[in-house]
């Protein structure tokens, strides 16, 4: 295909006679031999499936070339070899899902109603093969019962499967079960058959609880024997339950929760590049430098490094991008192209000339709303000089066409009736800017999310509503005025709160990218919690590494360390913060452009629980680590040891999983076994969460003779000193019996807890979640950014996580900070509040109510005592506007006349 010529009109696919299994939709429907992967694909260009094309295979047909209006079809297109000179490489080659046909015990090839979890995603999807209508593939009937089988191709060393845990399947199965229930018109029974539920990520445990308690998803701890399909398409599931009983249950659909793995192509690629991989094909990385491969200059991120979820992938990607850039600092901005923004047309004194662009969004809008009718209608509206429709108004070619029309017809205001401004407003604003129009002379009407999607049963009314929404947007845009965005310079220094491993890793990453930082630590030494850790899960010596890191920080002239420092006051905003620190009574004000919070968390001290503090044999996990570090000689003398998991985690007070404790206990159990191989070591757990590649360690521990017992948490457990002994009483769920053990050493795997009081969060206007950890701006898209601009988070302050993930996150936070610092200046939004001092009654409500401290009293001149608003601090939330009793504040871009014009336009009849 000639990508420049293809306009993605779809005529070629319409006329293509060859039908092909659509792998994008899990093979549940057909596509043509000329196709786009999905309607929103980027770039939105058709491609010819060479193996399937009749013309390319047999020399006949040629339909697509005949109908293509732009002559984009190039049958004799040849593969081209390009040579690119690059300074560093980031490998993000990803993973593939496990193919359950490899070792088919679940009837995947025998019944269409046995589907993989990825196929089920397509069934649920509104753009999927069944339009989001939940039906089973064999007869398109709505299911009454669906089962999910966990660990298909994961935690399994049988033929074709892999020994590791894929990390994501438990949580996605919960998601799919909850969504399936929402999709279903009749009550739907959903059951998840599992070995351990591993919801170890941030907020995943709450999600699990919600699935079980609010949505009523059933969780069955079991081992699956097999799945037997019958002639009617029903599936008989045979399994052994937790107590060893054989059970049979029939389901309409069985979803196989397939794991993630490295595909043949990615394997070949890593081999070709000489990147060291593990037995499963995942790129090997050092635990203390988690995105660096064995080849200098090549970095890795995402599921090529280990099976991981989207937030973890995004964090790794930012870390890898930063690492890739750190070797190329001198080349920064030397090769990039700057987009030349054309001079803005002065529209003062001009009457509005409005262009209206109505989007079909493929079939998303056009299958419900009569788009041509809306276009015709738009042409009749006041000041509208141009109206047209497009298939996808967000596509690259439409953007260019739009800019052209704006210039040709000398439009000075633009309305796009399409989807949501939340995702697409910046794109259209960029387009109008490129055509010389101020970006604030633009308005969007959401005729998809708020119209076609919700009114798909009532097409006529939906069309009327699309006209209403468009008319309202036109009424508003006519009154809009160009706005200016103040430009500010950015102080290129960073301030990092916390001198633990996360804070030090951030400082070192920033330094490697050429930026200075202040590292502010409240205690008298660097190192944080890592000073208490013995080994990482993959065997790294934590003390040696922390020591090395501290030395690196000390030797780095771009890092200024402030020990014994308390943050007492913060002024300023993104680009120009002023943080006051107090060091034993001595105050210092530090200027910086960005803030990275790496203030950590600590171990829960289980005072009064399980004889902790009353019996010297009871330790926390970190107390045991400290003894291991010190080489405590009493440890090898112990004949038996026991670990109790989830002490203080996954309960009502702390409904989150502390993520690190399962692996930590396994590691410590193995360390004890190494000290004294004949020691009896037992782990009492609820779900063993040795996620990802850590599963191998779990298997190793079982092979080394460590006994893992799932105890009945409903019955609970009791620890009592009895004479010389320490008695632990619990109920074994497999044996369904009360047991008593008398270990010489009892290790409590206690929770990771954030500080009880966190004044720094308030000072930087960062929000904390219900558990007291810092909240990210967006779980998946901005996982290390705070909602407050210029503030980033990493390490335990964000959520419980192991050391390697803290380091990755620290490097990611540094990268995100660099994306800001590298720009040197920053533009603030033009939609800010402004006071009219003459109308102000100086009541001070705005000063009190603003969450961003933007309003203040004027100190000098004729309006002394009246309110003014710092446009740089203002976020345009409108709180002050709504609360001003004198009507003295206006919000630019949302002025009263503009809003009222929009509202009044609603009441006008559609002509």
């Amino acid at each position, binding site marked *: 295909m000639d990508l420049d010529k293809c306009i993605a009109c779809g005529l070629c696919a319409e006329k293509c006679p060859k039908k092909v299994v659509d792998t994008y939709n*899990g093979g549940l429907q057909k596509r043509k031999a000329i196709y*786009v992967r*999905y309607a929103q*694909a*980027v*770039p*939105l*260009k058709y*491609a010819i499936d060479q193996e399937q094309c009749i013309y390319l295979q047999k020399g006949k047909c040629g339909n697509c070339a005949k109908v293509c209006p732009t002559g984009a079809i190039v049958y004799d297109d040849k593969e081209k070899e390009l040579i*690119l000179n690059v300074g*560093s*490489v*980031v*490998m*993000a*080659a*990803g*993973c593939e*899902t496990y193919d359950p046909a490899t070792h088919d015990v679940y009837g995947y090839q025998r019944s269409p109603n046995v589907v993989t979890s*990825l196929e089920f*995603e*397509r069934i649920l*999807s509104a753009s999927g093969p069944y339009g989001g209508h939940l039906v089973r593939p064999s007869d398109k009937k709505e299911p009454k019962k669906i089962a999910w089988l966990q660990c298909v191709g994961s935690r399994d060393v049988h033929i074709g499967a892999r020994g590791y845990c894929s990390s994501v399947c438990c*949580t996605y199965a*919960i*998601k799919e079960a909850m*969504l399936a229930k929402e999709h279903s018109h009749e009550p739907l029974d959903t059951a998840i058959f599992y070995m351990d539920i591993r919801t170890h*990520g*941030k*907020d*995943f445990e709450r*999600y699990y609880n919600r699935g079980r308690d609010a949505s009523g998803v059933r969780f069955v701890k079991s081992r699956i024997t097999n799945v037997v399909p019958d002639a009617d398409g029903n599936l008989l599931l045979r399994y052994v339950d937790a107590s060893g009983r054989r059970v049979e249950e029939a389901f309409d659909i069985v979803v196989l929760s397939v794991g993630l793995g490295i595909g043949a*192509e990615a394997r070949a*690629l890593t081999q070709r590049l000489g990147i060291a991989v593990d037995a499963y094909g995942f790129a090997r990385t050092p635990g203390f430098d988690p995105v660096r491969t064995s080849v200098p200059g090549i970095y890795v*991120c*995402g*599921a*090529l490094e280990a099976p991981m979820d*989207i937030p973890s*992938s*995004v964090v790794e*990607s*930012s870390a*890898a*991008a*930063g690492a*890739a*850039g750190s070797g190329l600092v001198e080349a*920064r*901005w030397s*090769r*990039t*192209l700057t987009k030349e923004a054309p001079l803005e047309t002065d529209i003062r004194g001009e009457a509005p000339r409005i262009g209206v662009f109505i989007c079909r969004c493929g079939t998303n809008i056009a299958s419900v709303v009569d788009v041509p009718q809306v276009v015709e209608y738009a042409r009749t509206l006041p000041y509208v000089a141009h109206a047209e429709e497009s298939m996808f108004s967000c596509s690259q070619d439409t953007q260019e066409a739009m800019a052209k029309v704006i210039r040709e017809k000398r439009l000075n205001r633009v309305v796009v009736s399409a989807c949501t401004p939340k995702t697409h407003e910046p794109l259209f604003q960029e387009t109008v800017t490129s055509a010389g129009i101020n970006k604030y002379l633009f308005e969007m009407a959401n005729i998809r999310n708020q119209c076609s999607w919700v009114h798909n049963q009532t097409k006529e009314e939906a069309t009327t509503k699309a006209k209403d929404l468009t008319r309202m947007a036109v009424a508003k845009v006519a009154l809009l005025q160009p706005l200016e965005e103040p430009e500010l310079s950015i102080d290129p220094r960073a301030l990092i709160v916390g001198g633990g491993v996360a804070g030090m890793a951030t400082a070192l990453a920033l330094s490697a990218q050429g930026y200075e930082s202040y590292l502010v630590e409240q205690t008298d030494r660097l190192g944080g919690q890592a000073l208490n850790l013995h080994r990482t899960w993959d065997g790294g010596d934590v003390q040696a590494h922390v020591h090395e890191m501290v030395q690196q920080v000390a030797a780095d002239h771009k890092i200024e360390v402030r020990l014994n420092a308390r943050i007492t006051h913060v002024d300023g905003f993104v680009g120009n913060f002023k943080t006051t620190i107090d060091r034993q009574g001595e105050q210092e004000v530090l200027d910086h452009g960005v803030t990275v919070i790496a203030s950590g968390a600590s171990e829960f001290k289980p005072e009064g629980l399980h004889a902790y503090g009353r019996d010297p044999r009871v330790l926390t996990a970190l107390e045991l680590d400290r003894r291991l570090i010190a080489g405590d000689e009493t440890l090898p003398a112990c004949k038996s040891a026991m670990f109790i998991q989830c002490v203080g985690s996954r309960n009502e007070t702390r409904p989150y999983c502390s993520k690190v404790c399962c692996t930590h206990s396994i590691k410590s159990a193995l360390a004890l076994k190494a000290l004294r191989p004949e020691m009896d070591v037992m782990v009492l757990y609820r779900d063993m969460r040795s996620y990802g590649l850590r599963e191998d360690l779990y298997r190793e521990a079982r092979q080394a003779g460590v006994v893992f017992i799932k105890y009945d948490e409903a019955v609970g457990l009791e620890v009592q000193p009895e004479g010389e002994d320490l008695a632990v009483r619990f109920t074994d769920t497999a044996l369904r019996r009360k047991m008593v053990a008398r270990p010489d050493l009892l290790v409590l795997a206690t929770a990771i807890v954030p500080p009880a009081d966190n004044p720094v969060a308030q000072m930087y206007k960062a929000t904390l979640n219900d558990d007291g950890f810092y909240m990210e701006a967006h*779980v*998946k898209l901005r996982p290390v950014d705070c909602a407050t601009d210029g503030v980033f988070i990493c390490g335990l302050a964000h959520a419980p996580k192991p050391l390697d993930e803290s380091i990755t996150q620290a490097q990611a936070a540094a*990268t*995100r900070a*660099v*994306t800001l610092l*590298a720009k040197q200046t920053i533009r603030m939004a033009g939609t800010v509040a402004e006071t009219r001092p003459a109308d102000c009654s100086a009541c001070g409500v705005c000063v009190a109510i603003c969450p961003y401290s933007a309003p203040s009293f004027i100190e000098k001149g004729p309006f002394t005592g009246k309110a003014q608003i710092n446009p740089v601090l203002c976020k345009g939330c409108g709180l002050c506007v709504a609360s001003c009793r004198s009507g003295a504040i206006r919000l630019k871009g949302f002025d009263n006349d503009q809003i009222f014009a929009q509202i009044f336009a609603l009441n006008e009849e559609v002509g």
Partner: protein
Amino acid sequence: MVVGGGIAGMQAALDAADSGYYVYLVERGTSIGGIMSQLDKTFPTNDCAL
């Protein structure tokens, strides 16, 4: 050069470009988006994957 145009590759490419480097994003398929584009919604917030 970023190899792979899924969510990880796209984020890495954006961050590298925003940090001031010229980036080649290399993808073997016909469009970027990777496996994430095939998902309906994403945990733990249930927002749309696309």
